[in-house]
């Protein structure tokens, strides 16, 4: 209850949540509210010379270079972004949580080995690695999600590691050990619950990063493949049109920006509320 109350006191967080909900509803209800089918190449969606049509009554946000309705594609693109955002980031957080917690708890050679591995992953330029991976495996929605997860877990692992290290040093863990609690009990009953705020915060903030990364991969043509609409590949398909048909870049760009921003705002608010180290500050 406290969380809800504190959350609602923040206008930016409420704005973020509203946009997130809007995107979510748009994505879920896309088949119902979208005026056209997502990959329907409408005959009157292109000029006779083959140019896309700007926003008008029939096509509220205009059409793309194949004569498809942009609004429809943006709505269906929201599905892609959210699915990837949730799946990829969820996987990343789960892996990061597991690796970070294990490394932080075990310490010693095993913990060190795990952290050296995350260091190694840190030394990969993330986007470059994602591009290489995505180009290697024929990209599809799920592959892209997994590629992003492979890249993004590292950050979570490092944070969880640091936090776990701190927790292990704390007196209550020492107290548990002095009581004779087993590793499983300490890890799952005592450490994990304390990491949940971090997991929740990253589960939210990370979605923003993920949405951006997916868009970037798709923009480079190694992300979600057409005709599956994704905000990134809509821009990819029409980037050379940005002087003659700016709506093809501007609208998906706004969609990406707003969605990422909203997840960031919500995540930031959650961090302020949930993270006990931040709580005392204000």
């Amino acid at each position, binding site marked *: 209850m406290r969380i809800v109350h504190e959350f609602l006191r923040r206008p*930016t967080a409420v704005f973020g949540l509203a946009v997130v909900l809007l995107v979510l509803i748009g994505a879920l209800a896309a088949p119902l509210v979208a005026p056209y089918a997502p990959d329907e190449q409408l005959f009157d969606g292109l000029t006779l010379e083959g140019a896309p049509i700007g926003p008008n009554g029939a096509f509220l946000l205009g059409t793309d270079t194949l004569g498809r309705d942009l609004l429809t594609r943006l709505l269906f693109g929201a599905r892609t972004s959210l699915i990837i955002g949730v799946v990829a980031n969820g996987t990343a957080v789960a892996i990061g949580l597991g690796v970070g917690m294990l490394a932080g708890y075990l310490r010693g050679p095993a913990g060190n080995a795990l952290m*050296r*591995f995350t*260091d*190694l992953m*840190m*030394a*990969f*330029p*993330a*986007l*470059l*690695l*994602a*591009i*290489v*991976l995505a*180009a*290697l495996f*024929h990209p599809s929605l799920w592959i892209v999600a997994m590629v992003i997860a492979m890249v993004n877990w590292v950050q979570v692992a490092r944070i969880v590691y640091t936090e776990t290290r701190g927790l292990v040093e704390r007196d209550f863990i020492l107290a548990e050990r002095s009581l004779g609690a087993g590793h499983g009990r300490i890890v799952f009953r005592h450490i994990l619950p304390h990491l949940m705020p971090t997991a929740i915060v990253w589960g939210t903030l990370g979605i*923003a990063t993920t949405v*951006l990364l997916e*868009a*970037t991969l798709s*923009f*480079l043509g*190694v992300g979600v493949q057409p005709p599956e609409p994704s905000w*990134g590949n809509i*821009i990819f398909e029409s*980037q050379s049109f*940005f*002087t003659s048909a*700016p709506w093809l*870049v*501007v609208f*998906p*760009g706004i969609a*990406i*920006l707003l969605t*990422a*921003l909203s997840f*960031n*705002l919500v995540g*930031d608010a959650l961090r302020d509320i949930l993270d006990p180290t931040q709580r005392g*500050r*204000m």
Partner: protein
Amino acid sequence: MIELILRRLGGALMILFGVAAITFVLLYALPADPAVQLAGRSATAQTVANIRHELGLDQPLIVQFVHYLGNLVQGDLGRSYTQKTEVMTLILARLPATLILMVSGILVEVAIGLTLGTIAALSRGGAVDRLVMTASFVGVSAPQFVVALLLLYVFAATLQWFPMSGFGTVSHVVLPALTLGVLGAGWYARMVRSAMIDVLNQDYIRTARAKGVAERTVVLRHAVPNALLPIVAMIGIDIGQFMGGVVVVEAVYGWPGIGQLAWQAIQQVDIPIIMGVTLISSLAIVVGNLIADLVAPLIDPRIRAR
């Protein structure tokens, strides 16, 4: 101190070896046979087989890797499949451009981030703080390729304040550096803000105030140097982020750096170049962290003592 440096260097070498091994395994698991593409459409099966043999692609993976490592130790990154030029030559030729871009990008983000973060920390909880923090999130959430395209459209194509693309003069670097810097500036502003808030809550700040030190001096002399430490560490990590952003920014602005090289190589499955660029990028990240480690003691005498 020297031991610390040596230990870091050893770690860096291990990391580079790991990067090389992982990249190698990944790239050679590739479905595309570069020989087929190189041989071109008129090639006979014999030609393809010859090319495979000449590239050593018909040898077992481990042999290829050992061979690769052997060359690597001598600074030889191999030859590009498509350009037939030494990868080292290609990278060295393009590295200055990328370095210029990265340094200007880092300057942009640190300058913006440091200023905004400090301002936000000082007006903490106030309207300015909230404005800066929201703005920083907008910066962080803005897709680089959209920012790049929009900056290009507004400032180069329409207003013509800056050239559309190319390399050479200061005005060429402005838009790419801004694009790279905007994203980072958001992170820095947030980092600086929380570091500053941390520092401003420290006892020694209260001590300084109790001495009658003016607020400006408190912030600039007492708070900023202490808040700088996490920022320096972040610049090291940042280089990794930058290496990714560089691909997008160089692609949009036609900047002749290694991001462009990597992107072309990925499309042409030019494995030696991809390997080379990945290794160089990792090297940059490792060196960045190393520099951050070495700069930290200059700022904080406590680390010097250790």
